[in-house]
C-alpha cells in the first residue's frame, strides 16, 4: 500500500490552504492602505495651505482673501483647558478608586459604566451638555463645550489611570503599609507618584482625543469668527471650523480646512507615538 498517494481530497485541501492563506496575506497587506491613503492626501492638501497667517489671523469677512484660524486654535486650547479643569479631578479620582479599591462592588460597577459611557455617541454627549448648560444659561458658551468634552474625557481617563496604577506591583503597596504609612499616603505618594509618567501620558492621550471632537461642540461651544470673547460666549474650535469650512463653497476655506486637519492629524500622531514609547518603558520596568 502506498501511503504517499495523494487523493483528490488531499489536493483540494492543499489548494484551499494556499488560497485561504494567500487571501489573509493580501488582506494583511491591504490593511495599511486606508491609513496611507488618508495620510497622503492630508499631507498633499494640507502642507501647501499652511502659512504664518493661518496661525496668527482670525478669519477675514467673506470676499476678502487671507485670514487664518487663530480663533479656532485659541478656542480649542481654551475648551480643552476647561474640560481638564472639570474632568481631571473626577477622572483621576475615579481611576485611583478603581485601581486601589478594585475589590469593592462600586469599582466593578464603575468599570462597566465607564466602558459604556466611553461608547456613547459623542453627539449624544452634545445633547446632554445642551440640556445641562446651554438651556439654563440660554446661550452657547465655552463652558458648555468644556463640559461636553469633560464628559467624554472622564471615563477614558478613569480607565487608563486604572490600567496604569495596576502596573505597580502589589508588594510595593504592602511595603509602604508595613512601614506604618497611612493608606492614602501610600496611594498618593508611592503608587500615584510612582506612575506619574504613565498618568501624564494617559492625560495627554485623552486630551488628544477630545481635541479632535466635533459633534459635541456643534451646539454647545458653537463657534465664532472673531476670536475669544469670554467663557460665557460662543467659542470657536478647530474641528468645528474644519466642518464649517469643508461644507462652504469657497476654495480658500477648503484649503484652510485641509491645513487645520493636517495640524490635528500631526498632533494625534505625535501623541500616540509618544504614548507607545512611554508605555513600553513602564511595562519594561515592572
Amino acid at each position, binding site marked *: 500500500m502506498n501511503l504517499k498517494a495523494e487523493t483528490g481530497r488531499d489536493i483540494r485541501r492543499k489548494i484551499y490552504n494556499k488560497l485561504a*492563506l494567500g487571501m489573509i496575506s493580501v488582506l494583511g497587506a491591504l490593511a495599511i492602505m486606508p491609513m496611507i491613503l488618508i495620510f497622503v492626501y492630508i499631507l498633499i492638501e494640507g502642507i501647501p495651505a499652511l502659512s504664518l497667517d493661518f496661525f496668527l489671523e482670525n478669519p477675514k469677512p467673506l470676499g476678502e482673501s487671507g485670514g487664518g484660524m487663530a480663533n479656532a486654535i485659541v478656542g480649542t486650547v481654551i475648551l480643552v483647558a476647561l474640560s481638564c479643569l472639570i474632568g481631571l479631578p473626577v477622572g483621576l479620582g475615579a481611576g485611583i478608586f478603581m485601581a486601589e479599591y478594585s475589590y469593592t462592588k462600586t469599582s466593578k460597577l*464603575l468599570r462597566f459604566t465607564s466602558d459604556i459611557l466611553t461608547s456613547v455617541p459623542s453627539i449624544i454627549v452634545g445633547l*446632554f451638555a445642551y440640556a445641562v448648560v446651554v438651556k439654563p444659561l440660554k446661550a452657547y458658551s465655552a463652558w458648555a463645550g468644556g463640559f461636553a468634552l469633560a464628559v467624554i474625557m472622564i471615563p477614558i481617563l478613569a480607565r487608563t489611570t486604572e490600567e496604569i496604577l495596576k502596573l505597580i506591583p502589589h508588594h510595593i503597596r504592602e511595603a509602604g503599609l508595613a512601614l506604618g504609612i497611612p*493608606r492614602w499616603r501610600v496611594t498618593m505618594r508611592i503608587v500615584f507618584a510612582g506612575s506619574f509618567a504613565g498618568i501624564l501620558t494617559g492625560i495627554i492621550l485623552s486630551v488628544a482625543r477630545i481635541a479632535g471632537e466635533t*459633534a459635541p461642540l456643534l451646539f454647545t461651544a458653537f463657534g465664532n469668527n472673531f476670536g475669544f470673547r469670554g467663557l460665557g460666549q460662543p467659542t470657536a474650535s478647530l474641528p468645528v471650523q474644519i466642518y464649517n469650512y469643508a461644507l462652504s463653497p469657497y476654495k480658500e476655506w477648503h484649503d484652510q480646512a485641509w491645513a487645520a486637519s493636517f495640524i490635528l492629524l500631526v498632533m494625534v500622531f505625535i501623541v500616540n507615538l509618544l504614548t507607545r514609547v512611554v508605555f513600553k518603558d513602564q511595562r519594561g520596568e515592572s
Partner: protein
Amino acid sequence: MNQALKGLRSLFTKDNTIRVPRDTHLSDRLFKYALRFNAWLILAMLLAMFLFLLELSWPTLREFGFSFFVKNTWNPPLDEYGALAFIYGTLGTSFIALLLSVPFSLGVALFLTELAPKSIAKIVGFFVEMLAAIPSVIYGLWGIFILAPIMQNTVQPTLIGLLGPETLSGKIIGSLLTALFYPVAFVYSLVAENAPSIDAMFDHFKNTFGGPAFGVGMLSAGIILSIMITPTITSITREVFLTIPKGNREAALGLGATRWEAIRISVLKASRPGVIGAVILGLGRALGETMAVTMVIGNRNEIDSSILAPAQSMASVIANEYPEAFDLQLSSLAAVGLALFIISLLINTAARLIVWSMDRK
C-alpha cells in the same frame, strides 16, 4: 499555636495578597470617601444623561408617542415629525459598513496573529490602530473631497452599469430582496392597510443600485464607516485570537491539518463568541458615528430605494438641524438622540458581556 496561624492567615486573601482590614486612620476614610464620590459621579452621569435626554424629548414623545419612530415624515413647517427615514439611514449605513469591514478586519486580525512575522505585525498593527485615533471630522473632509468624486465618477457609474435597475443582475437582486422581505410585508398587511404590493416591492428593490450618481450618499457613508470601525473589530478579534493557546493550533497541525484548517478549527471556531462581540462593538461605533457620516451621507430626509442616493442618519440629522431648531423640532431631534442613546447602551452592554465572558475562560 494553631490560633496564631489562623490569625496570621486571616491577614491574607485567597490569592495571598494582604487584606487591608478597615481603614484605621480617619484620613484614610476621608480619602476613600472622596474617591468614591468621583466614582458615584460617573455613575450618576450616565443616569443624568438619560433623564436629561428624556426631558428634552418629552414634548415629542407626548405629542406623537411611539408612532414617532415608525412614521416616515419630517416636516418642520407643519410640525409633523417621524424618525423612520433616519433609522433607515443609520441601519443602512451601519449594515454596509459591517458588510465591508467584517471580512477585512477578520482577515487582518488573522494575518497579525497567525501569519505575519512579529516585526511586520507590529507595523501593520500600528497602521490599523492609528485609524482609530484620527478625528472623525478628518474622515469627513477626506470623504467629501477625495472619496465622493471617486464614487461619483467611477464607482457609482460602474455599479449602476453592472447592477442597476435596467440590468439582469439588478432584477435578480430585486427578486431576491422581494422574496426576503415579503413575509414582513405580509405580516404588516394583516395589521395595516397600506402594505406595499409585490410589484411595488420589486420596483423598489430592483433599484437598489439605481442612479443617478451623486457621489455622496448612503454607500459612500457606509464605506467611510467601514474604515472607521475596522480598528475596533480588528483589535478586539486580535485579542480574542491571542487568548487561544498555541497548543491548540499545534494539536490540529499534529493531526495532519493544513495550516488553514488548523486556523479554522482551533482558532476561528473557538473564538466565535468573541468575534461576535467584536462585530457588535463595531456596530455600536458605526451607529453613533456622527461627523464623517454627516459630511458624506448627502443629508436628504427621505427613504430612497437606491443605496447610492443621499440619505440621513439619526446622528447626522441631529448634527445638521439641532443648531437651528426650536420647539417641537428641537424635541423631536432630542427624541432621535434618546433612541440612539438607548440603542447604543443596549448594543454595547451586550457586546461587553459577550467579550467578558470570553475573557473569563
